Every structure is written in structure tokens, then in C-alpha cells.
């Protein structure tokens, strides 16, 4: 087994930390990187806390995927008129969407809650210019590749949950960019609440 002391790929600063995570944020130059499946520097941003709430403060990571969805064919039973993708600009069969995929382990219900909240009602959040280092980051458990699969599932869910009963669909989902977004949250009585 090869054993290496983790260093920042950008500035070579060695990492010291009690907490383990699958993403590594350099305290020296601010670069964030992953080492699996391959070494890669990640695009990320932190949002500012805008609300006061009871509980402990955390940063919860989400993959924000900027995607292009193109629907080639869709067959729906029962619905009179099928509205393709409300989400897509102008109701056409192709469009761009930001999809938020939680990057931590959540129950299916919480997963849906958080991805719907941020995808459909994105809060007006300010990008934090200075990250509050006293607030812990929840470790990333869902990698970028898994986030792509979950985004695909979410797109399918948006289509299936429209009126009528989906019988067949052919579509493409292209992920243009991926960014890790740290959303401020409060942890109170076993639940996370948005802090934006």
C-alpha cells in the first residue's frame, strides 16, 4: 500500500486535520481537490448565513450541476395535453437547468426535500467572501459521478410528476459544469434547516 501525506496539488501545503473528508480544502491557497477517482481541483463556493435559527451551524455541501436537458420523445397516457418541461425555458423540449444534488448521506425524503428546495426555489444567497472557519463543513459522501446519476433521476422525476402517466421517454442530460456549493444550515433536533 502506498501511503502519502496529503498535500495541496496547487501550492504543496501539507494537510493536518482531525476530521476526514473526501474533498480537501487548502487553508493556505484556498484550492479544493479530490483524489478519487482521480486527482482533480474542484470549483466551489460558500454561501453566507443570512438567517438566525436555533441549533448548531454547519456548511452542507451540494453538487450544483449546470445541465442541458433535451427531450426527444415522450409518451404519456391519461393526460390530455402534455406540457413538456415547465422548467425548461419557454416550455420547449430543450433547455438549461441548475440541479442541486445533496452531497451528504440523507434519507430519501430529506434528499428530495433539499434538492427540490434548492432547484425550484433557489434562495437569494450571497457568496461568502470570507468563509467562517469556526463553522464545520459536513463531509462530502456523494462523489461527482454519483451526483450525475442522481441528477438524471431528478430530471426523470420532474417529468414523471407532471399530469398524466408517463409511459416512455427518451432524453439527453448533459452536465456542462459542476460546482460544490456549501449551503449554510442549522442542525436542530436531528434535522437540518436552511440558513439562507
Amino acid at each position, binding site marked *: 500500500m502506498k501511503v502519502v501525506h496529503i498535500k495541496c496539488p496547487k501550492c504543496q501545503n501539507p494537510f*493536518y486535520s482531525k476530521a*476526514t473528508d473526501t474533498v480537501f480544502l487548502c487553508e493556505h491557497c484556498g484550492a479544493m481537490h479530490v483524489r478519487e477517482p482521480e486527482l482533480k481541483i474542484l470549483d466551489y463556493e460558500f454561501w453566507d448565513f443570512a438567517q438566525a435559527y436555533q441549533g448548531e451551524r454547519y456548511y452542507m455541501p451540494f453538487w450544483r450541476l449546470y445541465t442541458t436537458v433535451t427531450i426527444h420523445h415522450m409518451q404519456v397516457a391519461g393526460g390530455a395535453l402534455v406540457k413538456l418541461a415547465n422548467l425548461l425555458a419557454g416550455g420547449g423540449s430543450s433547455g438549461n437547468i441548475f440541479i442541486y444534488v445533496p452531497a451528504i448521506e440523507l434519507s430519501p425524503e430529506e434528499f428530495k426535500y433539499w434538492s427540490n428546495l434548492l432547484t425550484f426555489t433557489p434562495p437569494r444567497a450571497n457568496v461568502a467572501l470570507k468563509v467562517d472557519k469556526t463553522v464545520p463543513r459536513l463531509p462530502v459522501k456523494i462523489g461527482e459521478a454519483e451526483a450525475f446519476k442522481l441528477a438524471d433521476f431528478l430530471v426523470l422525476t420532474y417529468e414523471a410528476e407532471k399530469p398524466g402517466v408517463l*409511459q416512455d421517454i427518451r432524453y439527453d442530460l448533459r452536465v456542462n459544469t459542476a460546482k460544490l456549493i456549501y449551503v449554510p444550515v442549522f442542525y436542530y433536533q436531528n434535522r437540518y434547516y436552511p440558513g439562507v
Partner: protein
Amino acid sequence: MGDISLGISCPSCGGALKADEGAKSVSCNYCNALIWLEGDEGVHTIMFANMVDRTKALNLTHEWFRRGLKARDLKKAGVITEIFPLYLPFWRLNARAAGWVCGYRERQKYDSQGRPAGVEREYMERMVFRDFDWTYLACDPGDIGVKRLRNLYGQVIPANVNEVPTFEVTTSKTDALNMGIQNVHQMAVQSANVQHITFQKIHVIPRQFMLVYYPVWIVRYKYQERVYFATIDGVLGKVVAGRAPGDPLYQSLIMTGGSVGGGLAAAAGVYLALTGISEELGILAIVGGVVLLIASYLFFRHGSEVVEGDIEAKYKGFSIKKAGEISSAVGGLRI
């Protein structure tokens, strides 16, 4: 957090590193250096404590002798020849399935007089979004009636795989993971319960993949010069699989019932067909009668044994040779 000593030292301070097996990064307990572990990926391994001792295993076997349709004198005439504890390695995959299954179900419609009035389609779109557990035996212990884990919880103890009687893992990690993903996919599609599928897309995202060393007791016993076995779950403390001699009385009852019923149905069928009351019904009754006769015959032939656990339906001579071999190998160790 990890408990397992990796036998390697921190490249920064030289302290001994401890981590969970299969972990990719670890923090040094002495200098806090973050360490990346590369290559030679281990498998996360856990082991459950055996809560059943030899006396309890014997008692459980004797209780089991008395239960069900087993030979009534099994408790007296059954002689336990071997009883030994064993650890069985199982692959366990916990994965989240996320997707949709679309299609329809067909239902026969009837009019007010009960006559068939066409087929109705009920369209369905079903979301599958939940976690599934898949387990499968990771070794080849011969026929011991256990292929899947029925229980996933127990008292976790350090996995000293080299110090307990166990079987070598025979499937590779990659093969097992692929098999697990395929099985979870299948379980997910089935859970949607759509009769005719027109569209399906399900992503399987592995969450935890590990080897579980699970304790069992293997019991071999003799009854009328034939060898049988029982497998005891060492965590739950109950017999989960086995073979046992059937009871001749129950068998003759079933045999008699089967032939009488089958014969009557066949005779009624011949009568119906010959008298022209209903030829179709008659033929149906004949076929039904013959099937019943064959079934009772098969039960009598092979039903002389009672089987429990993951034993393939197809009858075949059983061999617990392998489990027997290991018992002699570990004989001095644990029994």
C-alpha cells in the same frame, strides 16, 4: 476513528496508523497529518460475536428435532455426531436505487351479468427511491442451507479472520460488487410492481460494501444410518437451515389424501367428458387429477426428508463434506 492497525506508520511523524479497513484517507492519531492510502484496497470487514455456546447449540438442535413434520422419534433416535462453530463470510452491499418504472397492468372486465367484457389497462408510473440490502455467501462450504443473511445486526467484534475457523473467500471483490449491483437493480424493478414495463431507468448507487463474518454452528447427526445436518444462527440463536427425516405417518396421510383426491378428480373428469356435460371441464379435471397424483408421488419419494433454509428445490444428494473437513481441522481449537 478506525480501530484496525494498518501495520504502517505515518510518513510525517512515524506513529502507527489506525484506520477502518477499506478507508481511503486517515488522520494520524499523533500528529493530525492527513494521510492518503493508495492501492491494494482492502475490504471493509466486520465480524459478529457468537452468542451461542456448545450447550445451547445442543439444546437448540434437540428442540428443532421436535418441531414440524419431522420423524416423531427423531428426538430419541437422532444421534449428534458432530457439532462445531464456524464463521461464514458474506458479501454485503447496501445500495440506493433511484429511478422510475413505467408501464401498465391489464385487468379483465366483466359486464353486469358476469360475462367477460374486454381487457382494461391501468397505466402506472412508479418511482423507486430507497436503499436495498443484498447479501450473499462469499465462500463455498458445501450444502449447509445458508446462502443469504437473514440478520444484519449483532455485537461487532474485531475481525480476527486468521484466528477463527472460517472459509476462504472465493469470489473477488469486483465480481461480488457487480453481482450485488445487478441484484439490487432487479430488486428495485420488482419493488415497483409494474406488470407490463414500457420504460425503466434505475440508477444503483453503492453506499456500503463489506464482508461480514457471521457465526454459525454446524450440527451433523445420524438417524437410521443416514446423515443429516442442521445450521444454527450464532447471533439469533435459532436453527435456520437443515435436513431431517420426515415422519412416515404424515407421509402416508399425504400420499393417501393425494391419491384419493387425484383419483376422484380424474374419475369425475372422465365421467363429465363421457356423458358430454362439459368436455372442457372434464379434460381439466382429468389433468388436475393426474397432476395431484404425480405431486403426491413426488412428495412421497423425496418428502422422506424435511428441508429448511436456502436449499435448492431440485432434489439432489447432499454433501456437507467440506464443512466436515473443516470441523476436523479446527477440532482441537474450539470444540
